[in-house]
Structure formats: C-alpha cells, structure tokens
C-alpha cells in the first residue's frame, strides 16, 4: 500500500489533486482511496489531502499518519507545518518551488525534488496570477518522480476531471513532468 499526503493551502486544489491521482491510478487497475483532512477549511489556511493506493481492495478506513510520499503545493508552508511528520524513510518530498532541491535541508533519509509549478500554472493561465492553481502541474512532476502512474493515464484523468481549460491543464502536467528537478539527477 502506498499512502500519499498533499500539503497545500485552501484554494490551491490539494483535494482535487488527491482525487485526480486516485482516479488515474484506478484507471490503471489498482485500488484507491482519496480524501481530504477531515474538518473545516478556509481559503489560504494550511490543508491536507490524501491518496491511498494498493493492488488489492482497500478495506482500511482511517486517516493517513505515515505517508510514503508528500507533495507541498506552497513552499511557505514549510515554515508553518511539519510536512515530514510521520513520513517514511525513502519518501519523496516534492515541493512547488523555484529553488533547486539541494537548497532545502531535509534529513538524508528523504529524497527531495522541486518544480516551479507556479510558473507553469501562470504560463497556462490556470487560476489568477496572484493565486495560480498548481495542482495539476505538481501531479505531472509526481508521476515522473514516483512512476506511480503513467503520464498518459494521468493526462487523461486530468482531462476528464477538470471542468475548464482541460487542455491547458494537461499541458501543465506534461511540462512539469519534463521540468521536475531531482536531487542527484
């Protein structure tokens, strides 16, 4: 079972990202769950969303405490939230940031990657310039890093899940897929 946690701010699309990822993985024949952190949300507040993936039907219904990977949709959250809480060794930490991965100081047991999802979202006019919607772009980078889902399946899931500008979102997925910077590559 793979458990993924997405950190974002209310309005960035973390919950949709968790669902799109689940949908894409399900299309490839595996079993999934996706859910938000259970509670109240407001725009701009730190939020979390989760995706659970397995090769067999998922029977457990609990929250996720020890994720295998995390995505961080807003780098400023690193100062606010302990994003590595419960994170398993060897996990990917994927951050939406302009900075190269090595400039982040995480323990060595984690792998760090970054992608400038803001720039990609702005380029494809996803959301307003002051609050770009980065959820689709970061999924492209995540697919590349983890190989959990193929790029084409992910693009199809994005296309069917996003009500407006589906092709621009797909383009953002593809661009992030190409641009993601990994430590050591």
């Amino acid at each position: 079972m793979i458990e993924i946690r997405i950190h974002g701010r209310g309005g960035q699309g973390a919950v949709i990202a968790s669902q799109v990822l689940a949908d894409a993985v399900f299309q490839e024949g595996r079993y999934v769950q996706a859910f938000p952190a259970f509670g109240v949300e407001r725009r701009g507040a730190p939020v979390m969303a989760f995706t659970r993936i397995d090769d067999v039907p998922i029977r457990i219904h609990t929250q996720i405490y020890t994720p295998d990977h995390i995505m961080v949709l807003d780098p400023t959250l690193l100062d606010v939230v302990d994003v590595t809480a419960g994170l398993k060794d060897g996990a990917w930490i994927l951050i939406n940031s302009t900075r190269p991965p090595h400039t982040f100081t995480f323990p060595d047991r984690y792998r760090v990657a970054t992608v400038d999802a803001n720039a990609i979202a702005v380029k494809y006019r996803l959301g307003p310039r002051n609050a770009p919607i980065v959820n689709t772009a970061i999924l492209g980078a995540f697919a590349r890093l983890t190989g959990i889902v193929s790029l084409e399946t992910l693009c199809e899931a994005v296309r069917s899940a996003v009500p407006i500008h589906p092709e621009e979102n797909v383009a953002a997925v593809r661009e992030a897929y190409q641009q993601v910077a990994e430590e050591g590559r």
Partner: protein
Amino acid sequence: MKKVVTGNYAVSWGARLARAQVIAAYPITPQTSIIEKLATFCADGEMEARFIKVESEHSAMAACIGASAAGARAFTATSGQGLLLMHEVVHWAAGARLPIVMGVVNRAIGPGWNIWTDQNDTLSQRDTGWLQFYCETNQEVLDTTIQAVKIAETVFLPAMVVLDAFLLSHTSEPVDIPDQAEVDAFLPPYRPELKLDLDDPRAFGALVLPSDYMEMRYKIQKAMERAVGVAEAVDHEWGERFGRSWGLVERYRLDDAEIALVTSGTVTGTSRVVVDELRDKGLKIGLLKVRMFRPFPHEKVRQALAGIEKVAVIDRNISFGDSGVFAQEVRAALYRADKRPPVFDFVTGLGGRDIVPATIREIVDYTVAHDAPVEEFTWIGVKK
C-alpha cells in the same frame, strides 16, 4: 460504469438510479454534497425529480411525507443535528407507513459542536419505526440506497441508509455504478395501497382511538419483522443481477473463531485488516458485521455468534447511563441462545476520533486478557 466517487455522491447516484421523484432536503455538513449533486442532476435534467428547497430538516421530511402520501417516491438526506430537528416527523413517516428513503451521514451530536462521525444521531432514531442500514464502503452505500427503496416500498416503512462522516461521505473510492435499465428492471415504480387522491378523498394521519391504535402499532411491528426476510430476498436478487450482495449481517472468518468482533460502518473494514493480521499470528478471531440494525436480525446474530467463546462489540456511540447501543442489542439477541458467550463492549471513536488498527488491537488484547467483562463496557482511547 466504474467511477471513483465519494460516499455522498454514491448516495446521490443511488437516489438517481432509484428514480426518486421528489427530493426535499436542507443542507448540513457533512451531508451537503449529497443534495448538491442531486440538485445538479435535477437542474441538468438527468433526473426527472422535483427538487423542493425547504427551510429546515423538519420541513424537508414534512415535504417528503406529503410527496410520499401522494404516491411519489420521495428521498432526502441529512445528518446529526438535522436528523434530530427532524425527529417528530421521522416518527410520522413511519406511523403513516410512507416508504421514504433517507441518506444519513453519521455525525456526532453537539455540544461540543462536532461535525465528525459517530452513531448517536441515527441510533437516537432507533425506535421510530425506520429501517436502518449501516454501510462499510461507498459501493455498499450506492447498492443499499437502491435496495432500501425496494425493501421500504415492499413493507411500507421508511428506511435510513447510514454512512460515516468523512470516512465515507468525503472519501473517494471506486464504485461500480449500474446501468439505469438494469436498476429499472430491479426496481419497479412505487405502488401505494392508499394515497392522496382527489377522486377518493380520505383523511390521512387523523385521530386513531385507543380501540384501534395498538393494532396500528402491531402492524408496524409485523412489517418490521417481515422486513428481515424481504431485505434478505432483495439483497439476494441484487446479488443475482449485479454480482454483489451484502447480507443483513456478514460473517468474516468466523467459522472456527473463538473471539468475534461485532462491528458496523467503516470500523468493519479496518477491523478486517486487524483480523487478518491476528489470524496470521494464530489468533482464532473473526468478525460479525451488522449491516441491518432495524429491524435487528436477532436470529442471524444468534446463529453467527453460537459457539463463539468471547464477543467484543465495538460501539461508536454511547447510551448514557448504560453502554454502547450495539452491545445492548447483541446481548439481547444472545439472551435466547442456548449457550451465551460473554459480551465485551467497547465504546470508542466518538466525535470522529480515528479508530485505527492499534485501537482494535487494544480491544482484542483486552478481550483476550479477560475471561468475562468486569464492567458494563470499556472505554477505549479516553485520555485519562
């Protein structure tokens, strides 16, 4: 058609496929997206239903009662405080023998104000004369919603389809959404015995004197008793048509078990994981999932727990001054059994406190460690 959808959308799809004709509902977290989706279905013309906006849950049920009395298939959904506000007319729907189906997202009762799951809202409606089904997965939510319509309209009693807040309501899972034509073949249109009819005017819900009232109650109870067999038959037919059936109760690895967990709702799934894990370690443990709570399937519970050495009931609810409610029911069912195993009751997970595998392991450990209960029930997870 397989889709990854939330439990709430599974409810909405169930109502849509069941061709609900009147939907009257008032929004409340965490039920809101059920009626949002239904409103969208109606607005987009994907459902031929009249969506009635109302000013409270009481009105929602009142509108459903009127619609059902007029012969329409009526549907609503609510949660927590909304269900409590509705209470008076919840009784009415059953007393009037109107087969309304209602999705209820289990939400803890305030204050302390709380939007997360526990079962006290629906269990407080235990004696209203409504059928109650507690669901484990989103697939079960959708299937049960459609089944509930057929059962309700067969015995002329209303039915609640219950799902845990967030753990199902807001969690997306793969769900096989059946074709409309197949559901239509399974579920014929509603045919009331009596209905509001301008050409055959009658007073509905009028005074019933002491000379007749008890017979009306007797008939409700008879309908409840009949519902056990009807629900089993409907579930069986569903299984034949759609390849899935759920049972009124489900025995999981119980055959040679010495310890049986009794669960309902999403705790069941997490408990399955723990049962599997403990079985691997050699513990003879299984579980009994109670899906239909009203009518309570006494005989099935008795049979399932016959020969079990210890029974551990997990109650995500509390009847203040007594114990967990499911334990009461299980104990009562077992009282007529030849051999009555000791019944341990564990109250946990109230107000959305997460019930994780470790919680269930703690329950099992306690049960293993004691020959018999030393208290009416045991709190699990209270910070003391």
